[in-house]
């Protein structure tokens, strides 16, 4: 896995390669031919990936500083200091900026959370019997 990831960085910027390709680019171990994607669908998807990673890194710190801010026991001076501290953190570290995009098309809207797919892709796969347990509603 690690070997595949490292070898997959070809011609991309360093950040992209370190993040790792979303798909198994060098998985030549598959018997059948599969559409192999070695890039993210678009740059917006890449930025979303970066935000998710950063939010994960700063999650603990944000929770603790927010706990200092959102209480009525500590003195206000300390809470103001905490406000300034959390505002000083990088903007992409807050989880609010994460957008649940479709993993196949990077569509920001119409994405069903359970399948992480936009409605169009979901319908396409379901019609072609690629979604396990999904069938056309009929009653």
């Amino acid at each position, binding site marked *: 896995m690690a*070997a595949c990831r490292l070898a997959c960085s070809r011609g991309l910027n360093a950040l992209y390669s370190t993040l790792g390709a979303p798909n198994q680019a060098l998985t030549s*171990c598959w018997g059948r031919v599969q559409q192999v994607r070695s890039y993210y669908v678009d740059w917006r998807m890449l930025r979303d990936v970066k935000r998710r990673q950063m939010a994960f890194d700063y999650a603990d710190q944000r929770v603790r500083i927010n706990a200092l801010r959102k209480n009525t026991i500590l003195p206000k001076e300390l809470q103001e200091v905490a406000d300034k501290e959390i505002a000083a953190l990088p903007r992409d570290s807050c989880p609010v900026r994460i957008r649940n995009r479709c993993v196949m098309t990077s569509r920001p809207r119409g994405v069903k959370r359970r399948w992480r797919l936009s409605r169009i892709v979901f319908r396409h796969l379901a019609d072609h019997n690629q979604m396990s347990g999904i069938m056309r509603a009929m009653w």
Partner: protein
Amino acid sequence: MYRGLLRTARQCAFSLHQTGALPPKCDNAALPVFRLGRSVGIHPFNTSSTSYCENKENAPAPPQLKDKEDAQKDSASLAAPTDQAKVEITAECEGTNLPDNVPPPPQAKYKEDAHKDSDSLATPTDQVKVEMAAECEGTNLPEQGETLLKTPLKTEEENQQKTEERQPRVKTGKESLLDLLVAMKVDVTTSKKRSKGTKIPARHEPTVTPKPAAMESTHSMFQKATVEASIQSDAQPSVASLSPELVAAASAAAASLPDPSRAESELLQQLRQHEAEPEDHKRGEANNIGNIIADMKVGRPAPRQHARSSNTIHFDEDGRGYKKSLFERKRLGIFNPATDEESTDAAIAGPNLWDTEFANLLVRTANHMPRNGFEEMIQWTRDGRLWQYPIDNEIGLEEEAAVAFHEHIFLDRHLEEGFPRQGPVRHFMELVVAGLSRNHHLSVRQKTEHIDWYRTYFQEKEDVLKEAAAFLN
């Protein structure tokens, strides 16, 4: 001086151990042991015996099955450098136990045979036999064992010489160590033991004193060993020279053999060869061991059987060296088991960077395409893309399961230091701890990190807190 003889004798025993079959030379001595062994208990080396020894056909009737006897025979056989020693010991043990069950006539017969052979035997080996006998003797009855001691020893010595002459072998490291230990054992004598008297004192060399009675302890044994080693080292400064005692012993031993001159020359050759080996580290070993042992307490001979068996070095069947029971009774502290484990752990330690790199290279070069859906799913499971079945909610949390619940709940102890005792900060931290105690998703380490972060934060913001407190007050 007797090391050479003992080594050759031991070699015979080792060959026995390893091959499981007696070499033709050892047949004479081996047989009676095997015969007895079969009747008595289970001896791994005994099962391979085939030939019979004419000398020992007068051996006493098979002894009764006794655990003690078997244990003695086991211990004795392990310790004995040759089968002959085993014969002696088993005979002795048997003899000592016989009074209880079997009438003594077999003992007397055995003694007579032994006496016949005694004339031709050299003194040095007698000591060994006395040693061997002493082991068994100590375990059973000292008085009876004493009388039996001398008789078996002679025959053992004779056979020892024969085996030694016929089968000179290159010593392995293990054998050298065993020889060293046996040499240490052989040379131990004390004056009071000597006074107990044996029938062989006249033939013994002045420097080699017999050990008729029970050996006191390993302490004196190893002390003597160091002394002996030092004496020997002093006595043989040059590579190829032999001490006169050794030469005399060799000639006496050779005299008993069919071709005395040839035997003597071969014996001396072997001795010179053994002396030529590097003695320094052996001496060092003996000295170190002696120093180590000298610091240890002397064991009481009150449980004489235990003292006897612990004095002798009982060798295990697999030739590893030492029986477990020996170490459990008296730890000599020569070999530190921890070091062996550490060395093995280092060998078994986790893969280093080179190993992981090699593994990755293998994975990359060898494209094992999944031939079917099963292999594909196996590959997915290894990748982590597929859950492991049957579904286990706590996969990856095995070490967390081992953590006790009180470590998750009682976190007040972390508030004892670094936080003020009273005030809003304390109140806040108590609430934090209460929340953490109810959190199922964090590990104990994460919770302690949480509290530590707050400790450092409040210590940094002390001035702000004081200003706020002053403003309030």
